[in-house]
């Protein structure tokens, strides 16, 4: 019995792979935590494959910065049809690379700003924020934080997108005064980590009073762990935003399928997965609304965001400013 069963299933899988050979494959490059089994990847894949008659394959490569760097390494020979997970701070460089084609998606986004980019389709977004413990001292602005004795962990803007986000946040809020703020923040910074994970882990271990993360981070603890002890600090200067986008590769061999996927991104099938797997706000709130728990999150009154080319122009100088202020 057992043998026959094995043969049968072997036959089935042969059939299956024969069927696969005829199915078009859509290759989507994304960052690791999107494609991993606890990220949005599996649910998105299942939902899209239901309708597309295709095989959607995610390729996860490090973080957002690694993603763009890999695409540039591969150049026009890349097998990617779609890239999913570039963030606003990388858009100028991504546009300059000339690797991407315009999209035809039209949607009514629920973003704090107007989105009109012709190449990139936003799929989720969030505000950067310092996340601390509920009930503890909470400063109300970047300035108040710099003047306090509170300890924070941040990420390095040279190796991490949240780190770069904070750099832009300070620049957007303080402009010419950014260097002064960094100097005053220096004694609050416990350390600067290479990536988000290390920093967040250190905060959870009690190494700091707060960590640079997102306003949505407390939702993870609340919903996944039923732990309401983490809060994001609302700051008077406003909060810098991160918008994550997807785009079609100019050299794709599946242009129709790629367009279909970009359209799918702004539909409920994709958007309803985002809040509790990627722990960000969906770019277009699905019909059923946001999951319970998200209503407890802080809602910054002012959203800050540099335009892509402006951010790119500011970056080198801002990093040098940051380095000089913190190296004292």
């Amino acid at each position, binding site marked *: 019995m057992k043998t026959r069963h094995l043969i049968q299933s072997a036959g089935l899988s042969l059939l299956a792979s024969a069927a696969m050979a005829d199915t078009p494959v859509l290759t989507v490059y994304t960052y*690791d935590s999107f494609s991993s089994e606890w990220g949005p990847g599996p649910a998105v894949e299942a939902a899209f494959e239901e309708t597309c008659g295709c095989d959607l394959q995610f*390729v996860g490569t490090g973080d957002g910065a*690694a993603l763009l760097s890999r695409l540039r390494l591969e150049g026009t020979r890349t097998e990617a049809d779609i890239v999913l997970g570039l963030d606003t701070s990388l858009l100028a460089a991504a546009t300059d690379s000339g690797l991407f084609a315009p999209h035809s998606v039209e949607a009514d986004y629920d973003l704090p700003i107007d989105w009109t980019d012709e190449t990139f389709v936003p799929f989720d977004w969030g505000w950067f924020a310092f996340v601390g413990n509920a009930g503890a001292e909470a400063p109300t602005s970047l300035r108040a934080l710099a003047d306090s004795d509170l300890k924070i962990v941040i990420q390095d803007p040279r*190796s991490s997108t949240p780190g770069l986000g904070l750099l832009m946040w300070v620049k957007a809020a303080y402009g010419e005064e950014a260097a002064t703020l960094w100097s005053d923040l220096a004694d609050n910074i416990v350390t*600067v980590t290479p990536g988000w994970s290390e920093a967040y*882990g250190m905060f959870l271990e009690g190494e700091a009073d707060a960590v640079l993360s997102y306003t949505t981070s407390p939702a993870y603890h609340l919903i996944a762990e039923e732990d309401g002890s983490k809060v994001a600090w609302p700051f008077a200067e406003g909060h810098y935003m991160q918008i994550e986008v997807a785009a079609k590769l100019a050299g794709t061999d599946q242009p129709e399928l790629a367009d279909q996927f970009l359209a799918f991104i702004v539909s409920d099938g994709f958007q309803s997965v985002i809040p509790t797997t990627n722990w960000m706000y969906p770019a277009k709130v699905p019909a059923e609304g946001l999951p319970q728990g998200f209503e407890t999150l802080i809602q910054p009154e002012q959203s800050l965001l540099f335009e892509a080319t402006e951010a790119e122009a500011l970056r080198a100088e801002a990093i040098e400013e940051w380095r000089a202020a913190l*190296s004292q």
Partner: protein
Amino acid sequence: MRRTGTLYAVLVLAIVLLPVLAVLRAGSVNLTFGAADWAALRFTILQAALSTMFSVVLAIPVARALARRRFVGRGALITLLGAPFILPVVVAVTGLLAVFGRNGLVNSMLDWFGLPIVSIYGLWGVVLAHVFFNLPLAVRLLLQGWALIPAERFRLAASMNLPVWHLLEWPMLRAAVPGAGAVVFLICLTSFAVALTLGGGPGATTLEVAIYQAVRFDFDLGRAAVLAIVQLLVGLTAALAAWRFAINGALGGGLDRVVARWDTAQLRTRVADGFWLCLVGLLLVLPLAMVVLRGLPALGDLPAAVWPAMGRSVLVAFCAAAISVGLGLFIALRGGWPATFAGAAPLAVSGMVLGTGLFLLLFPVVSPATAALPVTALLNALVGLPFALRALGPAIATAEAAHGRLADELGLTGFARMRWLILPRIRPALGFSAGLAAAFSIGDLGVITLFATEAGQTLPLMMYRLMGAYRMEEAAGVAFLLLGLSLGLFWLFDKGGRINAEA
């Protein structure tokens, strides 16, 4: 066989250098070396030099105590000495923070006594972490030096009432310390995550951080390659300097031996040895215990994908061990400058540039997903190579000195000599090298981030992905698994090398 060795050494150098050249070629050469780069170079050398000094100087009394004391748990302590080096950096840092961090054991105690707490972050934090990683390694390297002093010499010194330190130990250390120091220096030179996490800010920027930025954010490959070449030159210079000053000391075999000594009964030396052993024991065991304590509760909740990932990691580790020992054997037989360069270059090269360069070279030929595991195994093997060379070289020399004449007499050359003389005589060193390479490979994230897909993830990659998804507890569970696997594999190979390996 000599020619094979040269060939392999050249192959190793090619695997290290070609990717650097590929990166250089892909970018526009940018020779500007700004103030920030000079600062990074200075800090890189400063922290590496300090870390090396503390690791090696502290290793001397510890290795001496281990060499001359027999006590319960001595074997276990020696096995544990291999642990920090093979731990993924992020795991080790978590363990260290649990002891020395703001909320750690040390500061809790200080606080309890009403004393001000101390901060681990900054240059000294980086040095502390590097000492945690490398002191045990240096102890193992030096312990070998003690094992090479023949027991009869101690007897002779005792019968003539001569000072053992002056007569036997100091000359041995003069031969062994430069080599051990060079290995530690090279490891600290390319430090990325430790320097960044514990450095406390951009003042603690190493060259590797600048390289990372150049590749990831600026996509300035020319600059990345130039920085990598500067780093490589510093490393090779250090290795050559050590080679000039050092007589090769052995690394493998004979660790279990306690030589009978007649100079160790005084209370003073007993107290001193006890102090050093307790110190290194605490420095080692406390952070490791923290990793275990945090990981154990999560072990039941690990996602199912952890098991195939573990299988892949073990497979990669076995391949890395085989390649490392295979290359090491032939290169060690060859000796000389090829061995020196082949033993230094893999440690001195920038991991970021190596991975990127290999990607550029391989991508046109083979899909990155297919190449992910083989490339990871190969690069892990290369990192194990310097240690394999340090273990195998002296073991081969010893076998040749004792039995080479008989092998000549019997006309044993080439592979027959390898089979009947070399291999059986150097088995403990082979086991040690294979164990180290395997254990290191298990914990190494390496280049897999650049190549891997969902289907091919290894255990360290999975740990990072769990961390990236807020799942710190599960990540701690995987970290515990990594620690256990690393130690288990090292123990397995090391023991395997010793079974039936009679004199």
